[in-house]
């Protein structure tokens, strides 16, 4: 039972990280392309990139917190 809880929590954290990895990767990649196309706008692009990345990361951290609760409350 204990192992099942921990296993599901670990799986949940892993899935959350997977999603966030894809999301942040796409944001970073697009920002890189945009900067390459317009280097003079790099400041603005970076700010927008960080905001978007933080929003994606926030969702991933919800998953991590939920997984942590799953482990710690058993």
């Amino acid at each position, binding site marked *: 039972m204990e192992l099942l809880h921990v296993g599901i929590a670990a799986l949940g954290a892993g899935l959350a990280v997977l999603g966030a990895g894809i999301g942040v990767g796409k944001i970073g990649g697009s920002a890189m392309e945009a900067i390459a196309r317009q280097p003079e706008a790099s400041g603005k692009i970076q700010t927008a990139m960080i*905001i978007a990345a933080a929003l994606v990361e926030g969702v991933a951290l919800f998953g991590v917190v939920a997984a942590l609760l799953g*482990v710690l409350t058993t």
Partner: protein
Amino acid sequence: MATHKSSRITVALMLFLFLNSFSSFAQLETDEVVDEEFNPTEMIMHHISDSHGWHFFGEGEDAVTLPLPVILWTDSGIVTFMSSAFHHDTEGEYVVEADGRKFVNYHEKIYMLDEGEEALQFDEASHAALNADRPFDISLTKNVASMLITAILMILLFTSLAKHYKKSKKAPKGFTNILETLVIFVRDEIAKPQIGEKKFMKFMPFLLTVFFFIWISNLMGLLPGAANVTGNISITVALGLFTLALILVNANKDYWQHVFWMPGIPTFVKPILAIVEILGVFIKPIALMIRLFANITAGHIIILSLIGLIFILETAGVAAISVPFALFITVLELLVAFLQAFIFTMLSALFIGMAVQEHEHH
């Protein structure tokens, strides 16, 4: 000369980071001597949670702890005593008598025993004390003490900066110049673009306070033996509530119209969208608070887990990999400390900007 100075600073920084890894190392070693079986979850929770005394190192009676005042609001008035009265006990065994009542510290929660009771009886199954109540705890805990240090530091830094501008019109030198750069960064990169030229000055005090409070707290959390202030959900809840209050107080007519009765869409969609928008008003500060809490807590857990690996696997050789890796994560956390302060301030400014901006009517 300049390169000389910077290389000296770099060496000092490296030394500090190494010391940081070793101090967590030392804490763990003593942990293990007492508990025969090493429990990583317990060790990590002990390091990231709040406590009534400021524990530095050592275990049991040898522990080096800074005692902090315990302030309790009971039915018979306020009771105060120092946390050292518990003699480092968090298992509810050591009974402290104050103002004729008996108190125990059980897992950093203070219980007041019922009249005539001598020891705490705790029911593990229902997580409730059988013969004791929890008085309203307004103690000066480790996190509160750390926040007070941050506040004093901020008052000292920024009054010195303000004094400089009273004396002269020239650009400040040395450390105050760094502060000026950061204040201008918050003004020009965060407040002005998000809130707008006309109204941003009104929100600058809040944004600057939040930015520097979070940043300094994050950095202090990385010091060896320091409190985990921004990784405590209660503190981030309070910070999120400040942003929510500012949005609710300052929001203009346009904002409320967009929340309750969105213009420019078919009427039958309007009530559905209103529900989503009302939820959105509250989800914004909740997301802010969870982002900060989870980021900082996750960072601390990763560093502690890496060091904990040595004791889980019980081989000293693992240290060769896990200590440098923990060092790397610590350096990364220095960046995260700034980034999270920036993100919190930036999103607060963005949400406030959404609430106060004037819409062009067509």
